[in-house]
């Protein structure tokens, strides 16, 4: 097969897969569209089987890591960690919405960093809403902050965001190195979010709360907290020991799951295991693998050459800013997953700093569009699916206030970190 034909097939498959993922016909999982498309790309020879296999093998540890983190977050929820966090925030805020906002920022930033953005969006946000309303405060500033931080506080660690996991290999950075280079940009991103949320929601935050005591007391899940802390330590020490960090995550999952199984009453064991497997979200893992294969075909058959000279090279401040901006635009057009997969192979030769700049773009960028990409937003508007105009309007305004400033300031912070520590 000639390269242009192969490229055309691969691009068509990619568009079809992304279209399927946005439209979700009959609510089918995204992987249902992606897996056959990836097989098709290989079957017609747009990507040699060996190359496809190599890509799958390369993504293997990333996907295993992802599965382990998803299960870890699920187990933490089951252990009552998020409920306990909600009660802690309620107690410590002493009925003052401004204090609550500070606590929400701390909890949401740490949850995102350690248990990934999925945990913050899916598991923490409802708890924050319930906490704020139980306190008699207006929930809006707090839930909007949580939703924003799921993206912008996902810069710190490779586990914080799937984009980071995908990039860790390309950047050739160890877990600890990644974290130390991204610490400053992470703090800058959180600080900007905090300032904007405080000013934007000044009215909502000035309301005096009227707490309602539900009498609920969730015991602090000490065991789960210790396991998560040890898992985190495992991530850090696994790199120098040349062990894939997903083994540490898997160990954490095993310990927590075993503890739960031992404590479970009879008859709960099977449901417990079934829920754990559901949390690992096999369709999602397949989607990531399939998307990786299709993007590989697109990049190899000509995209790399086509956009190679458009993408800035080097790791000077201007190049990094351009890369972050480009990544943010691409993430907002399609979605940050395909964006990062397309950009990584092109940018990786420019070094770790360039890869981290891409991550700043794809992680912070999605805050600009309510659902993380313009394509998804437009489709949801066509369906009139559930979104309220006031919600989208307010989200977009907050995004416009935070995203451009954060992109520039965080990339600046990354540049400073690189100058100070070297890469």
């Amino acid at each position, binding site marked *: 097969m000639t390269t242009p034909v192969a490229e055309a097939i691969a691009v068509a498959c990619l568009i079809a897969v992304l279209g399927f*993922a946005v439209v979700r016909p009959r*609510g089918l*999982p*995204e*992987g249902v569209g*992606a897996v056959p498309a990836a097989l098709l790309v290989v079957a017609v020879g747009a990507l040699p089987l060996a190359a496809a296999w190599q890509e799958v093998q390369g993504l293997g540890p990333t996907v295993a890591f992802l599965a382990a983190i998803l299960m870890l977050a699920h187990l933490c929820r089951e252990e009552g960690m998020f409920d306990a966090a909600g009660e802690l925030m309620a107690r410590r805020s002493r009925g003052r*919405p401004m204090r609550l906002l500070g606590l929400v920022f701390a909890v949401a930033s740490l949850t995102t960093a350690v248990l990934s953005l*999925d945990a913050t*969006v*899916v598991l923490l*946000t*409802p708890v924050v*809403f*319930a906490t704020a*309303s*139980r306190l*008699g*405060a*207006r*929930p*809006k500033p707090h*839930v*909007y902050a949580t*939703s924003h931080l*799921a*993206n912008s506080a996902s810069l710190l660690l490779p586990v914080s965001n799937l984009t980071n996991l995908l990039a860790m290999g390309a950047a050739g950075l160890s877990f600890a190195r990644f974290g130390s280079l991204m610490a400053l940009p992470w703090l800058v991103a959180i600080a900007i979010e905090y300032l904007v949320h405080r000013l934007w929601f*000044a*009215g*909502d935050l*000035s*309301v*005096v*709360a*009227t707490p*309602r005591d539900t009498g609920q007391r969730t015991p602090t899940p000490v065991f789960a907290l210790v396991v998560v802390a040890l898992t985190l330590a495992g991530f850090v020490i696994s790199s120098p020991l040349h062990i894939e960090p997903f083994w540490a995550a898997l160990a954490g999952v095993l310990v927590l799951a075993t503890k739960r199984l031992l404590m479970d009453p009879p008859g709960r064991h099977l449901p417990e295991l079934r829920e754990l497997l559901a949390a690992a*979200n096999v*369709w*999602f893992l397949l*989607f*990531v693998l399939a*998307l990786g294969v299709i993007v590989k075909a697109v990049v190899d058959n000509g995209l790399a050459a086509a956009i190679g000279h458009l993408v800035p090279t080097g790791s000077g401040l201007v190049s990094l800013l351009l890369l972050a901006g480009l990544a943010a635009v691409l993430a907002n057009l399609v*979605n*940050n*997953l395909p964006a990062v997969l397309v950009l990584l192979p092109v940018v990786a030769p420019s070094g770790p700093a360039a890869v981290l700049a891409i991550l700043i773009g794809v992680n912070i960028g*999605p805050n600009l*569009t*309510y*659902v*993380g*990409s313009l394509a*998804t*937003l437009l489709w*949801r508007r066509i369906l009139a699916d*559930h*979104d*309220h105009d*006031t*919600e*989208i309007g307010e*989200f977009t305004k907050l995004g416009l206030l935070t995203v451009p400033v954060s992109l520039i300031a965080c990339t600046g912070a990354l540049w400073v970190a690189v100058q100070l520590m070297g890469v």
Partner: protein
Amino acid sequence: MKVAGWIAAGTWPAVVQAMRRRPASDELVLVAVADESEGVPTGPLSGLMGRARRASDTAAVDQLSRTAAQDLLAQAVAALGRPCEAQLRTGFTEREVTAAAAAIDLLIVARDGDRTRLGPRSLGRHTRFVIDHAPCTVAVVWPGETPGLDSIPAPPPDR
């Protein structure tokens, strides 16, 4: 006289207090609104590409705003300590409160904006709408202390 009070997070104790002072002959109604658009934004949830989220996930999130409004209303009814009608409405807050005022003589609301700087913004977005459109007399009460006369800024120099 039929008197309604708008029960909203944070400001409702002031409204309930004002309603307790109404004469015993008054008929009292407490109105709270479950407003999905003020709840958890579901966009980020469905923006997670590849995670195969189901519609039931967003439905669960919407249930949260209903539960919160219900709890708030129950809390207010208990605090009022007088016979009253409790109305839980679903929809856009400002429109539901205005509609609830249709057969009402007096609607009591609380100032709900940023009260640290008195001015147009000391009324929240929804309160502004309700005051403009409610088909009855609206009483605006202060949550907490009323401001003293010293809260009035100095007149502009040209006056």
